[in-house]
């Protein structure tokens, strides 16, 4: 992988990590807009797959997603560069703030800006939810649509553990794919 692409990857990850307010979910939408729509390094399907793997592994979702994208684009070297880009912004910002954290926490300007940003973060997440669910609907397979709504209801209203949902959905997918393979159909 050429140096220019590695540098671009580092710069992009650094940039994305600086704006992952509201947890790892935001980075999925940022990655989609950057790597799929702008740079065209990944397909939308791949981002969904990476989101699924990143979510199912232990550790910070943003770091997991960065490793997957980095490895896919530039092998081990790409993965290391992507991790560095993701980890540096919080490391630098928190190191600085830790010395003045009480002043930062109570600052009215900081609080007002962050309160304003919350609405933007929510809008970005909802935008990506609309786009991603459209990809699920496009598969024209009712069972996936049912799984999506069921998973939402079960996490939102019944508070079922995320791990349970991930394991059962993965098993459902494997069984379904094995079944269609046996019937001689296509896997996907």
């Amino acid at each position, binding site marked *: 992988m050429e140096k220019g692409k590695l540098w671009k990857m580092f710069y992009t990850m650094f*940039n994305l990590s*600086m*704006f992952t307010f509201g*947890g790892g*979910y935001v980075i999925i939408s940022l990655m989609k807009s950057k790597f799929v729509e702008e740079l065209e390094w990944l397909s939308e399907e791949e981002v969904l*797959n990476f*989101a699924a*793997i*990143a*979510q199912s*592994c*232990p*550790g*910070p*979702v*943003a*770091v*997991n997603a960065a*490793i997957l994208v980095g*490895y896919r684009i530039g092998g081990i070297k790409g*993965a290391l560069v992507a991790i560095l880009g*993701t*980890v540096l*912004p919080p*490391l630098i*910002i928190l*190191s600085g703030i830790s010395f003045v954290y009480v002043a*930062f926490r109570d600052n009215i300007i900081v609080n*007002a*800006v962050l*309160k*304003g*940003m919350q*609405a*933007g*973060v*929510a*809008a*970005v*997440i*909802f*935008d990506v939810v609309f786009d*991603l669910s459209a990809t*699920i609907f496009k598969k024209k397979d009712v069972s*996936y649509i049912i799984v*999506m709504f069921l*998973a*939402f209801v079960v996490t*939102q209203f019944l508070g079922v553990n*995320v*791990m349970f*949902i991930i394991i059962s*959905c*993965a*098993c*459902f997918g*494997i069984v*379904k*794919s*094995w079944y269609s393979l046996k019937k001689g159909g296509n896997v996907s």
Partner: protein
Amino acid sequence: MILMDLFISFVIVGMFSFGGGMAAIPLIQEQVVTIHQWLSLTEFTDLITIAQMTPGPIAINCATFVGIQIDGLTGALVATIGCVLPSCIIVSILAWLYVKYKDSFILTGALQGLQPAVVALIATAGLSILLLALFGEGVETYSLDNLDIISSVLFIVSFAILKIRKKTNPIHVMIGCGIVGGMIYLAVDYLAILL
């Protein structure tokens, strides 16, 4: 030896926190407050507040903060490396498997099943952030009386921009909301003091 303890503590946090930041908080609390007493409970609560106010994964933010308190920049680096190490190993193996066995029926099947689940999980997280933005923290009942009008308008306008202009950079939307929203909130506070 304290650096070794710090490293191991955050390896444990990185290895057992499934499902993102919120799931990591009780684990971090156990390591940092209960077992090692590096921070008091009040300090830990402050830390969580700040970790949520600043960008980046919550676990990395906590690792940096605790590390700095214990041994300055060295501590921060040790804790952060510990926190991402399990991810590096586990996810790298999965990334390798993904590239190699992308077309096997087990991997394709598992991912096909996981995709709708992940959309649902992102929707759940989005909903809780939206409720936080529209009604504020720790609200039990959601009604029109405690709806934040400024935040609602910001949300609707941002969402419309993202939907209408597909190429819009989400980062610009977030910065825009921060600047515009921040100024409005400050102005409202200022007026409230004046009147």
